[in-house]
């Protein structure tokens, strides 16, 4: 891990809320509002990887876009490197962007098809006014680091495979040598054989640049492999956050437990022996979330209190926070209550 000597965390997100207005008509403004992110708080420390997992539509990508200020949060605070940016203008944030970057999910859509690879990778440097000589040097260096060839620079994105394109996307994100990179499902659009490749490359970068990652993902095995800490989101809220070990071996929230139970384990004996939790129903609409605990409509432990009082994210142990009225640590593999 990098020798980052700093006081507080690199990234501090507090009570982040992002509301999307529903579609209104000409005569009447729409009253329906969708709270995609409904009060999310977390820190990212220097050099660590925090992963956010959850089903599609739970607000994890929206959270990522609010942190990088592609979207403007409705309320709450986002502090990057000690600067509050949640409501700042793009012009104010621009100089800070040297230090935080983003890698996108879709390696096809996230590269401009009318630009050459060289133009794509050097664009951040051009935007931030680096001298021409340094741009050339840095682009060449990062291209080598990403196992691309020098001759690739004059080619266009459509001439590459998905894995290569994602490497181009990563090169664009790290060419300015940032300290913090948001990875929005960086491997979920790729073949499994290429995923490992990309993950390794990201880990290498983390080591050499001392990067902190905020990774959005839904593949639990990938998350377990790369994360230091994991946050589980459900319907716009974090329901459980803790270290890798706390989440994977001592999960306390019924939703986390259900998620883990749904992920297959590549060992038939363990797979047969382990406890199964099958959730009923679908994720409720974020336009009309359930009262009290948002997970109560699908929870196997639901009781009266769950519909009346919203459970807060509380800390039962060291850094392990759970939002549930009846938290209970279960190691799903051994079925033992811890």
């Amino acid at each position, binding site marked *: 891990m990098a020798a980052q000597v700093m006081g507080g965390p690199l990234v501090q997100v507090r009570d982040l809320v992002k509301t999307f207005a529903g579609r209104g008509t000409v005569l009447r403004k729409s009253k329906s509002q969708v709270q995609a992110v409904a009060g999310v708080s977390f820190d990212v420390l220097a050099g660590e990887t925090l992963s956010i997992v959850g089903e599609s539509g739970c607000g994890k990508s929206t959270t990522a876009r609010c942190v990088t200020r592609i979207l403007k949060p409705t309320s709450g605070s986002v502090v990057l490197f000690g600067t509050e940016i949640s409501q700042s203008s*793009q012009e104010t944030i621009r100089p800070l*962007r040297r230090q935080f970057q983003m890698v996108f999910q879709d390696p096809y859509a996230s*590269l*401009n098809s009318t*630009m050459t690879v060289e133009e794509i990778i050097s*664009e*951040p440097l051009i*935007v931030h006014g680096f001298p021409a000589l340094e741009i050339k040097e840095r682009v060449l260096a990062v291209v080598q680091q990403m196992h691309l060839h020098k001759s690739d620079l004059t080619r266009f994105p459509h*001439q590459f495979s998905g894995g290569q394109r994602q490497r181009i996307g990563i090169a*664009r994100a790290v060419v300015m040598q940032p300290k913090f990179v948001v990875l929005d499902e960086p491997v979920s659009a790729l073949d499994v054989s290429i995923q490992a490749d990309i993950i390794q490359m990201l880990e290498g970068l983390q080591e050499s640049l001392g990067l902190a990652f905020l990774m959005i993902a839904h593949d639990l095995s990938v998350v377990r492999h790369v994360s230091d800490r994991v946050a589980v989101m459900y319907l716009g809220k974090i329901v459980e956050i803790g270290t890798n070990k706390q989440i994977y071996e001592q999960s306390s929230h019924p939703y986390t437990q259900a998620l883990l139970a749904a992920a297959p384990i590549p060992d038939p004996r363990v797979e047969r022996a382990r406890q199964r939790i099958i959730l009923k129903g679908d994720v409720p609409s974020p336009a009309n979330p359930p009262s009290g605990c948002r997970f109560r409509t699908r929870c196997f432990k639901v009781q009266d209190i769950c519909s009346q009082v919203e459970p807060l994210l509380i800390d039962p142990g060291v850094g392990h926070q759970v939002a549930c009225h009846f938290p209970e640590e279960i190691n799903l593999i051994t079925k033992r209550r811890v």
Partner: protein
Amino acid sequence: MTSHVDQPQSFLIRAFSVGRRPQVAFGLVIALFWLIVLTTVSIWAPYDPLEAVGTRLIAPSMTHLLGTDALGRDVFTRVLYGARESMPIAAAVIVCATVIGTLLGAVAGYAGGWVDAIVMRITDVVMAFPAILLAMAISAALGPGLRNGFIAILIVWWPIYARLVRGQVLSIKQREHVEAAISIGATRRRILQKHVMPMAITPVLVNATMDFGQVVLFLSSLSFLGLGALPPSPEWGSMITEGAKNFYQWWIAVGPGLAILTVVLGFNFLGDGLRDVLDPRSKGDK
């Protein structure tokens, strides 16, 4: 059609193979023909387009390929000279309309909000009238003449491009590569110039090519109705009016009619071919 859509082909190879299709080749030949006529007709044209060169209303013969009109002018020469009347104005209309429409459409689509609302309401108002009626009203108010015809057509034509470009910009600005540009800190101007417009411009080029013929037709329609070009000038539309007056001398109207037909058809085919070159996803052959 074989399905080698994803096969990367260079722009030139694609342009060449598309250009060899009979339809597109036809369009290309017609466009080139009129371009040559337009630039060189004064050198080799057999007669003067404005002077009587023979007896009135002679039927087509070897000396007068398309006969003569009611004033004894050579119809064939006048048809050739007609290209010099309509085509530069049509080109000017297309250029001005695409520039105005693209700028306003891009700004409206990218800025959104009240800017978008204002621009789009203006286009709504213009497009709410039948184009030919509005153009007639405008040129009637301004008085006849090709310059006023140009202004009238421009006014009814630019909203088409404004809408087209706005729609393109609206969809392109949602794409992930634009988010990526925001996240690296690109300015709004740079995003619009480098990440949105290069992709929005393709359909504009295709439409502009196809519309060229339409504008020629539109201008002739105005002249036919006595708005547009003034009498002595050899404009195709006004020549057809003369043909209508001398209905039994069919050659007077057929010449300019064929000229309009070939221009409209030719540029339509050319636009089709251009679309196939610029956007390999929609290969035009059935």
